[in-house]
């Protein structure tokens, strides 16, 4: 059954590269409108999943409908309505900023005279109007990212896929990009985004799926995930003696984790914990509400990934 309120509906999606499984049978249902976040450590299978959505890599198993059409058979038709901001910029270095948009439009079969105005508007949207004639090699990382976003919008797509759109950018550019993404969301476009920044996911996404080792291990709205997977409060303690660790662990409704010198106390009894900590003069602590990063680390562990 085809569901027209979904932009992506996948069941049992699988991908292996010469025997090594990258995506192990995931189900995806991404509704029209809003922002869907795909989170996970490096190598979790996020980019591979997005590549299958675009028909840029063969599916090893499962079924997928994108915009109501079967993949990968309908990949060309599907891509005509998609915008893509890739993880690594692949702007065309042989052209200027404006030419990049016009040449890219031609890949969609759009004619220059029909997109010239739109290209100028998009440059204004990402604040690159004064760079229209600059060559790609002379742009900073942030400018390239903004141009990639403008390029992804040249075909007025229904769905925008952003693979780590703000990785490596300074706070000014990140805030500008977040702002633009929110305005695209308001315009009714569907955003699908991968990121390593939990703060970014919390700010932008309406719905999140956390992936690890090729599987989706948790799914829901950011607040739901925090409520469902973490105690409401976190207290980070520096320089805590072992006795204190036991004392905090003994409090009802919580757990304690030690990472090097830092003690992380996840708790439902923040008041009692603070009452213990406050009189102690030889330690410093920080009391904050639980966030998505706490959920992420709880679910995917603290081990480093390649």
């Amino acid at each position: 059954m085809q569901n027209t309120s979904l932009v992506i509906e996948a069941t049992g999606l699988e991908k292996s590269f010469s025997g090594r499984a990258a995506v192990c049978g995931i189900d995806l249902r991404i509704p029209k409108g809003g922002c869907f976040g795909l989170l996970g450590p490096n190598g979790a299978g996020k980019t591979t999943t997005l590549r299958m959505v675009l028909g840029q890599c063969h599916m090893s198993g499962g079924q997928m409908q994108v915009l109501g059409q079967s993949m990968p058979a309908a990949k060309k038709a599907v891509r005509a309505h998609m915008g893509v901001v890739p993880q690594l910029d692949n702007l065309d270095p042989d052209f200027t900023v404006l030419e990049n948009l016009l040449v890219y439009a031609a890949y969609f079969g759009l004619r220059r005279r029909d997109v010239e105005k739109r290209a100028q508007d998009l440059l204004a949207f990402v604040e690159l109007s004064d760079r229209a004639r600059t060559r790609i090699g002379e742009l900073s990382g942030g400018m390239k990212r903004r141009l990639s976003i403008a390029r992804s919008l040249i075909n007025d797509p229904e769905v925008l896929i952003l693979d780590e759109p703000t990785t490596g950018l300074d706070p000014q550019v990140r805030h500008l990009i977040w702002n633009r993404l929110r305005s695209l969301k308001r315009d009714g476009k569907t955003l699908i985004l991968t990121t390593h920044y939990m703060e970014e996911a919390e700010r932008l996404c309406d719905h999140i799926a956390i992936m690890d080792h090729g599987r989706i291990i948790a799914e829901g709205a950011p607040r739901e995930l925090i409520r469902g997977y973490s105690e409401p409060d976190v207290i980070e303690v520096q320089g805590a003696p072992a006795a204190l660790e036991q004392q905090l662990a003994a409090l009802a409704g919580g757990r304690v984790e030690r990472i090097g010198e830092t003690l992380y106390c996840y708790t439902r009894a923040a008041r009692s914990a603070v009452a213990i900590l406050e009189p102690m003069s030889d330690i410093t602590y920080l009391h904050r509400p639980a966030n998505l990063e706490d959920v992420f680390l709880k679910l995917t562990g603290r081990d480093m990934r390649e």
Partner: protein
Amino acid sequence: MNHGLILLRSANWSLPRPAWTALAVWRRNFLVWRKLLGPSLLFNFGEPLLYLLGLGYGLGRFIGEVEGLTYIAFLATGLLASSSMNTSTFEGLYSVYTRMVPQQTYDGMLATPVDVDDIVLGEMMWCATKGLISSTAILIVALGLGAIEGWQPLLCLPAFFLTGLCFAGPALVVSAISRSYDFFAYYVTLVITPMYIFGGVFYPITTLPDAAQSLVSMLPLTHAVALIRPLAAGHIPAEFALHVAVLAAYALLGFYFAVVLIRRRLIQ
């Protein structure tokens, strides 16, 4: 898992179905070329002028006539074929590899309705166009020098394009399986240069030993020369259809294998 591997392979081997978007790929390369028109044309016209003046007149004085042509005419009509081969080959190696690997131009295209089939067709047409441009420049130089004359040499233009297509496919295949630019040395030194030297550009293949002749007559450049030289000199080529068929067959096979191997590289 094995099942997955077989599926993957068969998907790559399916028959190419390129669409009109191939023209957008061709046009992208044309727009870049147009930006560098000056140096490109200087190269296209300057090189053959030097060759024809230096070798044609210089060597021609000692050689006299070859197969009823002055040596400069013989050389010029041979270079018409080899220039399409060389230009198309180098575009299909260095430029295509640059767009495929370091620049990731194709990855950008694959987010649009352009697919691998279209990229390969567009690139092959572009390689052939560059071959056509370089051979046409030689044709103009040769006409200017009076090495060839009349209007019939213009009939060569489609043959230049076909020769370019014929060599574009194998060059794309080599690009698709190369891990770096260095790998191209095998193909250029072992395949292209021998054809250039032995394929009848500088002297008739009838001067080669019999065994070598039958080997050389299977090579595409030999057919390109056998097609283009008479056309440029004002004759009807013997076995016209055979030469066209051989070049077209190389072009079609090259296209197919280039599509399969570039799918394997980009789509996985």
